[in-house]
């Protein structure tokens, strides 16, 4: 009775008793019925309606019954890992709220390594943090089965749910994202599964515009391998010059590629050993590039001002040919070969070409030689981590200022070795007093890169500076740096397996 009557009352109230007058409900002898029957339905319809609504509001509110029982929900799989400490949980909450992302990523990695799980109530925020992309792998690992289970409950987290949903999510984002989002996605996917990334790229290749295609090719540099060659080789015939050039550059990074072999064939007849008093490389200017050479990316544009057109073509040939070729030509290793350029014709073109080749082919031997010879930090990126730290530390000794320091450090993967960290702290202490605000930004990066074992060194070096007469911006930046180091230290202690 009460449900039907309530609906009648609502309809009458909505239209107004002027237009729809409620009629006296049939009394059923119960307490509610009797109370309703006592209202002035004939005389004062408004009062009757309001009185009945008041009775029913109380009646329905107090009498609300749960719906019929349902089956229990499927429980999440058991996460056997112990819960992280309250201290670690508090740090996680802070990082989730206001970053920085690099420390959040550290937290997740440390927890995963220690076999500890984050507090489950923070998993929704973790999933939200992963939506943007770069933290996804770390979030999935640290979150464990409970996180995947939770992710299956909401569409925006489908990337973490695993299986078909995650795959569909990737495709959807690839097809609908902005250029920047798609580029970031492609880099992420390439990092995890290079073939899958290439398939994504190919899936929309024919419909993407030239600037997009050229941009996305950049992402193939992540996880570049011989399997990418057929696709890149076909891209050499692309409609867009930008795409063709980018494809040629990538193929030059694959010493086993057909393009590299063609470049080697073009280069070989031009170089030999000469010199009467002292051995040196004898190099001839290459002929005007033919159509095939132009297809392989040899171009007139982009020429540095100190090279002539022929020398620029030569540098591009050197930059795209496999570096092993030089051992065949000179019989020497990288260092000795580099020395043979001294006094040779076209020495600047050779050196530029070698630097290009070492960078593209990630050749550690050549990269180390060139960094040492030139002091140019760019090739640090081509070095394996340990070697890069070592070379970087020697570079720091000669780095004149804070900007030079940053140029070196930003190329070294974190965390840096103890020796490099010490060198960085020492350099900073020497150059900081004259530094300007630019350093406010760089110092937080530095706090992330420093090896934790050098925390004491940082404290004893920077602590006195805090008390001294440095500009307020520098003091704040230093305090931040020490704060981040402290947080990293606490985090490491809290996330140590017990």
């Amino acid at each position: 009775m009460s449900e039907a009557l309530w609906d009648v009352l609502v309809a009458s109230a909505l239209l107004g008793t002027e237009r729809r007058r409620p009629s006296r409900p049939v009394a059923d002898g119960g307490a509610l019925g009797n109370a309703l029957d006592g209202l002035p339905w004939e005389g004062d319809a408004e009062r009757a309606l309001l009185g009945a609504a008041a009775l029913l509001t109380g009646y329905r509110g107090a009498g609300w019954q749960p719906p019929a029982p349902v089956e229990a929900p499927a429980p999440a799989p058991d996460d056997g890992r112990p819960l992280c400490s309250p201290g670690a949980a508090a740090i996680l909450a802070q990082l989730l709220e206001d970053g920085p992302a690099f420390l959040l990523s550290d937290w997740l990695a440390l927890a995963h390594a220690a076999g500890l799980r984050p507090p489950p109530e923070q998993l929704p925020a973790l999933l939200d943090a992963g939506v943007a992309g770069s933290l996804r792998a770390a979030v999935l690992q640290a979150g464990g089965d409970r996180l995947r289970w939770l992710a299956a409950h909401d569409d925006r987290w489908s990337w973490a749910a695993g299986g078909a949903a995650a795959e569909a999510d990737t495709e959807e984002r690839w097809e609908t994202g902005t250029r920047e989002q798609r580029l970031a996605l492609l880099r992420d996917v390439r990092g995890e599964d290079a073939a899958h990334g290439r398939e994504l790229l190919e899936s929309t290749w024919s419909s993407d515009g030239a600037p997009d295609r050229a941009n996305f090719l950049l992402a193939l540099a992540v996880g570049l391998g011989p399997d990418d060659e057929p696709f890149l080789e076909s891209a050499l015939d692309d409609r867009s010059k930008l795409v063709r050039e980018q494809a040629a550059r990538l193929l030059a990074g694959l010493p086993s590629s057909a393009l590299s072999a063609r470049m080697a064939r073009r280069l070989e007849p031009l170089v030999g050993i000469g010199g009467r008093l002292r051995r040196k490389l004898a190099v001839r200017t290459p002929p005007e590039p033919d159509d095939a050479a132009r297809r392989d990316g040899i171009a007139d544009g982009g020429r540095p001002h100190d090279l002539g057109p022929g020398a620029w073509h030569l540098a591009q040939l050197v930059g795209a040919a496999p570096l092993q070729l030089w051992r065949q030509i000179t019989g020497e290793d990288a260092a000795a070969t580099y020395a043979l350029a001294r006094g040779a014709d076209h020495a600047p073109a050779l050196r530029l070409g070698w630097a290009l080749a070492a960078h593209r082919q990630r050749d550690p031997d050549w990269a180390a030689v060139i960094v040492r010879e030139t002091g140019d930090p760019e090739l640090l990126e081509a070095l394996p981590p340990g070697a890069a730290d070592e070379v970087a530390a020697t570079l720091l000794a000669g780095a004149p200022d804070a900007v030079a320091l940053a140029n070196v450090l930003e190329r070294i993967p974190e965390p840096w070795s103890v020796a490099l960290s010490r060198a960085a702290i020492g350099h900073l202490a020497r150059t900081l007093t004259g530094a300007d605000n630019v350093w406010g930004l760089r110092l937080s990066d530095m706090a992330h890169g420093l090896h934790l074992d050098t925390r004491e060194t940082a404290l004893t070096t920077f602590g006195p500076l805090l008390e001294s007469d440095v500009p307020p911006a520098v003091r704040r930046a230093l305090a931040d740096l020490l704060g981040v180091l402290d947080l990293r230290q606490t985090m490491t202690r809290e996330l140590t397996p017990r």
Partner: protein
Amino acid sequence: MSRWSAEQVLALAPDSASATAGRRLAATRGWPVLGSDERAVWGLAQGSGKNPYQVAVDLDGPAFRCSCPSRKVPCKHAIGLLLLWSAGDAKACAPPPFAEEWLAARAERADKAVARSAARSAKEVDPEARAKRQAQREDRISAGVEELDRWLNDLVRQGLAAAQSRPMRFWDDAAARLVDAQAPALGGRVRAFGSAAHSGRADWPARLLSQIARVHLAVSAWPRAGEMPEGLRSTLREVLGWPLPGEEVRRDGERVDDAWVVLGVRTIEQERLRVRRTWLRGERSGRPALIAQFTTPGGSFDGDYVVGSVLEGALAYYPAAAALRALPVSDLARRATGTSSPLGGDDLGAALGEWARALAADPWLERWPVALRAVAPIRTDGRWWLRDEDGAMAPLADGAPWRLVALAGGAPLQVSGEWDGRALHPLAAFTGDDRVVALA
């Protein structure tokens, strides 16, 4: 006193910015002095200035003191200090002079307050003047209520659909007239009509009619207030907004001495006010209690309640048909919960039964605390529910309760919440790994 969890500490922060700043402070060095004893925690916090700030927290209460210029209570330094203490970094030692002086002054003030309140209650009030004031107020309310009665009748005669097209002013003006008639709480209910009418919900007519019906009930009850039992009359006065001074409640209200479990704390912004509702339940008496506090936006609340902790002491209940709102008679003493079931709890049927009895006594009742022993969040029919072990379900309030869902992982756990007659707003959960997690 046992240490609080970081979570409990952060629940004290007046806003999330203070919580964040506090965590940041706790993570840095800048604490040249740090210590605690059974009753208090103190420290020196290095700020941007030359002298460090003197921070101290009296754990009974708790009460906060800091020499920093922030008006927030507790300030970020106090939060940071408590976080350090919570992590075990504030070792036991004797308090430094600044903390000792403050703690002594607090103890003295508390003694004086007790003496003052005793003096006040002993003081003679002029009964004649008081009766005159009361009669004036009753006349004003009666006039306002009569006018509201006509207004409500017009409303349903012309129909809610017609009223919906009126601007917000239409409702606000009616509410303002009630404030003038010294029935501000009733005015608040009338202003809420406007929100219901413009809520955009499919069921707005039914919701609005329920709200109107309850106001109609108050309007028709007022002329007969004299015939009512005292409890119901007090409830009606509260519905109208007749203020009852806290000291009267402390003096005359029903006193219940118990160990009060903090079931949950919920702070909302409402009509340019911050309202904090703290829900308690007595371990021995089983009685629910609500400590409702009001402040301006950005303001802070006196006395802090850490979810899952237990407060020993006496509460005084406001007189009411279904006693719920209460005040601490004096400072409550905090102790850590010792049971394996800190939030306690019933099955859903028992909780709903208690709600029905309370609603039968007080038809204007808006919400009631519930603690459910073993419920799991489950999604069905496009919304979230709490399902008890027998399969019975109560709907959760709008929005996705993700933290609770993640905590439960589909398994039953103890959950406390506010039941508003339609849905449950989760306030806290007690998890399988023995933690009380605040959810509101």
